[in-house]
């Protein structure tokens, strides 16, 4: 199964809080058969956020969990209709990651490592803010 596909990309997501954002994106993951237990995965992600929020500035957050409640390694991207307050930052673009625990090899993790590096660069973030369809997102990320 691919780490990411067009079904894991959401535009104009409406959410009022980080919790709602994470939960809605987890819903998309669940529809795609990526999770064993949506509620438990969401709880793992939120727990991770409580320790150290993944909002990194530049309107981006990367909520994630390596969890037994994950079935398939997955990367979802959501662009929110309106920015949401996420700890000390505003967030409008979310990369949400689900990785099974124990892991299943390193290929997906390499993609995530590369993506993490890309996020740091202004031109990548600008392109993401301006893409108009799922295909363009996949081309930018994978």
């Amino acid at each position, binding site marked *: 199964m691919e780490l990411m596909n067009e079904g894991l990309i959401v535009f104009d997501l409406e959410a009022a809080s980080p919790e709602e954002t994470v939960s809605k994106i987890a819903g998309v993951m669940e529809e795609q058969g990526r999770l064993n237990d949506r509620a438990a995965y969401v709880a793992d992600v939120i727990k*991770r956020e409580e*320790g*150290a*929020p*993944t909002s*990194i*500035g530049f309107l981006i957050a*990367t909520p*994630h*969990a*390596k969890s037994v409640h994950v079935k398939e390694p997955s990367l979802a991207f959501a662009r929110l209709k309106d920015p949401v307050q996420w700890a000390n930052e505003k967030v409008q673009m979310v990369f949400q*990651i689900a*990785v099974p625990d124990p*892991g299943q090899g*390193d290929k997906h*993790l*390499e993609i*995530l*490592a*590369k993506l*993490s*590096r890309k*996020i*740091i*660069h202004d031109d990548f973030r600008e392109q993401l803010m301006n893409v108009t369809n799922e295909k363009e997102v996949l081309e930018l990320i994978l």
Partner: protein
Amino acid sequence: MKFLAVTACPSGVAHTYMSAEALEKAARKHGIEIKVETQGSIGIENQITPEDLIGTDAVILTKDMPIKDEDRFENIPKVKVGVSDAVKKAEAIITKLEKMVKEL
């Protein structure tokens, strides 16, 4: 000026690499040579060797996870930073360290 850094985070999936890239980007902007080792979920990459230590002015270590082989850096000035800070405030960290090294 030459810095080294080692980054690691609890899940080893995202912040390890974001912080590495952010530190590299900020150092380049300041004309500082830097090598960043990542200790993440895909193992150790860009490993800092004994040769790399030669001529190094300072080392940046993230403090969220124990850094493997930290004793390599025993005799080099060190700063420990949160991995989130290294992502968000890389520029400020590099600027501060540059100033610190100049005043040594």
